[in-house]
């Protein structure tokens, strides 16, 4: 059932695209059919393939469960969520602060999960890790801003950096 829902979701998105493409402007001298002709051709192929897959699923006796939310499960799920938070906060916090927080959390969390004794390795180890993480973030920031001349978001450190 899960895969059928997945296929229907793709079909719905494709249907919306198909409907939208019918409204695209076609230039007066355009003999190709405009910007909608190619997506429509591919969408028709996609609809045929989705229908074929649907029939294949319905005819099959054994049905494997469809995994929709595998990316939210386990250690990987937590890491993915922390990365999502990093992406969402990069503009308001700025790269240096945001990346430091992300790296501090993810490294310590993964370290904790990797060790059988479920400990962070003592105060000294945590301090060394923190210093290394901050140094790494500053190095990345220097490489991209000074060497590659990319404007990374400064955020709350706007007046300092």
């Amino acid at each position, binding site marked *: 059932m899960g895969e059928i829902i997945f296929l229907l979701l793709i079909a719905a998105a494709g249907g919306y695209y198909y409907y939208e493409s019918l409204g695209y402007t076609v230039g007066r001298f355009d003999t190709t*059919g405009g910007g909608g002709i190619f997506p429509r051709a*591919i969408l028709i192929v996609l609809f045929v393939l989705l229908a074929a897959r649907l029939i294949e699923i319905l005819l099959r006796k054994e049905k494997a469960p469809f995994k929709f939310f*595998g990316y939210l499960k386990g250690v990987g799920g937590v890491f993915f969520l922390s990365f999502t938070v990093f992406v969402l906060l990069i503009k308001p916090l700025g790269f240096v602060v945001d990346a430091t927080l992300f790296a501090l959390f993810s490294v310590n969390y993964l370290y904790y999960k990797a060790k059988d004794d479920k400990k962070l390795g003592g105060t000294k180890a945590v301090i060394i890790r923190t210093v290394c993480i901050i140094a790494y973030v500053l190095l990345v920031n220097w490489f991209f801003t000074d060497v590659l001349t990319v404007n990374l978001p400064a955020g709350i450190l706007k007046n300092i950096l």
Partner: protein
Amino acid sequence: MLQQVLLSTLTDPYFILLAALGAFIGICFGAIPGLNTPVAIALVLPITYSLNLNHTLALIMGIFMGGISGGLISAILLKLPGTAAAIATCLDGYPMTAKGEAAEAMAIGTFASFFGGIFSAIILIVATPALSRFALSFGPWEYFGAIFLACTLVCTLCDGSFLKGMISTCIGILLASVGLSPIDGQSHRMTLGWSELNSGFSLIIVVIGVFAFTELIRSTNRLKDEKTINSYEKKFFYFPNWKRMWKQKWNLIRSSILGTFIGVLPGIGATVAGMFSYAQAKRFSKHPELFGTGIDDGIVASEAANNAVTGGALVPTLSLSVPGDPSTAVILSALTIQGLQCGPMLVIQHQDIFLTVIVAVLLANIFMYIIQACSIRFVVKIIEVPLYYLVPAVVLFCAVGAYTINNRSFDLLSLLLFIVLGWVLADNQYPTMPLIIGFTLGKMLELYYRRTLSYYGDLGHALISPSFGTVLVAIGVLFPVINMLMDKRLAKKRAQQEQS
């Protein structure tokens, strides 16, 4: 003439030094996802103002050769293609690393890259005029046929359902169509009112999201698995095992020929060459079922082809002034800065410059090989870094690399979308490789489709035209059908054998 050029270049220490420096910079930029060859060449452009033409050629060709080859490092060690060209290398490179053969995989990949690069440079000397004519004979219908064939071939090489592969390809092509329509630029397709989507999604965001990050984040679920390097000898210079390489001789030659020819066609590029060649190696192999489990054939096919593209890509760039990809476009601008006018007359009137390019390409390939073969013993150490340090560090660096493409956080948001898409597809046995190939080729497929319509009036006329394009489209349609029938026959035969 050749003697003079050889004498003037090979006795010039700066020429040799700059080729080596270029290869080193290229390898570094190629190995890091998010950074790429055009960025590296663009970065050294200001330096080239102070260099003469020969030195500029040495530096730029070094970066070009090193940049394509460098992608294999992260592809083999981390299943994270440094460049899109190294995607096919991941398929067998990473399983070899998982088996503890990282050093051997790197040595094989490096040698295949070197062979492909040298092969295409020799072809460049011998066949530039003929290859230019070949490229010119391709019209929009032939290009469409070639790209269409590449798309269907990739679906046949994927393990699992062909239908799922085709669905993935279509999704990739449709994702590539998002943004302003090509040719007319009148339609804002699936932009949902967001101006950021007018230029569509970036290829590197899709590759990193669907392929690389998905795998990296999934690896955090296996934190306690320790990766080791079994056959790891501390050597200064890594040659691959010659017996193993000798078995790959036809694969090396076939992949290099394929890569060179694909490189000659503007716009098709190293990604397609790698995948196409991988598909062919699998087809010609006596044991196709082993592809994807970590065998030499896969790495050799991908790396020889994607590096052979470099020589091929220089043919239209130098002889027709038509750059095929961003790398050659930046090379063309660097040469223009030096006052060099590329075009058909370059090969005839400035043969010395043309020969200098070839010497620079050969030298760059040699340095690329030396640098990579010498650094294997240090580079393979990466996989021994604990995942709790490696994954956050790589994710952070790649995310910033992704941000730098357009300097906007919107790209990071779309990266999240592609991670989810890649994860859902991979979790449910939908191959992600065809999606990436569909995305890579989608824009060109559309461009040549519409040009074909413009040229022939409609698709029917193109299909009945007696041209090479029709043959390619016919193969593209028939090949998967024949492949499916053969697979079914094989499965039936196996079932009968098992029963008996």
